[in-house]
């Protein structure tokens, strides 16, 4: 069978995938007062995994990253709903949020909000849904 020459793609995609994952984490953490958030972060992470899938093949990525992506959907939804239900423990209405300022050794004084945990739930759900859709369509060829 005809074999394409994709040496440049294979060499650079291992570097580009790390840059994409770093940008995804930046978007996830920046998404409170500026553009970003859990949805775009999850989309960028699935873009990085899709890039690895396109350049190395589905079998290699399944060996490197042995995650069942369908299990990420209920985990993410449980985290997101648990953040909303957890506000009942403090006699507050559903989905109410709070924040406070903490001081860390390296980063200094930063703001931590409970909306961050909700964003992480959205992130896991989006990664699960996107990778499930893409891999289901890709495995449909025979």
């Amino acid at each position, binding site marked *: 069978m*005809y074999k*394409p020459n994709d040496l440049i*793609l294979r060499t650079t995609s291992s570097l580009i995938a790390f840059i*994409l994952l770093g*940008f995804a984490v930046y*978007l996830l953490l*920046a998404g409170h007062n*500026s*553009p*970003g958030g859990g949805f*775009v972060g999850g989309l*960028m992470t699935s*873009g990085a995994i*899709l*890039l690895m*899938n*396109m350049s*190395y*093949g*589905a*079998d*290699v990525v399944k060996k490197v990253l042995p995650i069942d992506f369908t299990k990420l959907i209920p985990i993410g939804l449980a985290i997101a709903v648990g953040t909303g239900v957890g506000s009942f423990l403090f006699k507050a209405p559903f989905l109410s949020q709070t924040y406070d300022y903490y001081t860390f050794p390296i980063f200094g004084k930063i703001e931590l909000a409970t909306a961050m945990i909700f964003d992480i739930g959205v992130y896991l759900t989006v990664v699960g849904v996107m990778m499930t859709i*893409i*891999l289901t369509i*890709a495995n449909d*060829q025979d």
Partner: protein
Amino acid sequence: MTDLLTTTEQILHVVVIICFIGIAISLALLLYRVIAGPTQPDRAVALDTIGINLMGLAGLMAIFIVTTKLNDVILLIGILAFLGTLAIAKYLEKGVIIDRDLD
């Protein structure tokens, strides 16, 4: 000095609006190519070029409403357009985008 500043701001405003019109014409022509393209690769390459035009449009919008918040958006559109270009190239060369095993 203030006169010079206002004059350059007006020139910038006019130039940005002219660039908006140019990109709009380009998008209309590309949309025609997407709808009426004779073959499938024509449509694929036209969709890819629409992504590049969207990057330019977001950059011009960041100049028009003076803000730096849109820089992340431009980077994001660029990354997604890169992935799209990669998928189009693999589709045109092999016919499959994600294959089971490469070797």
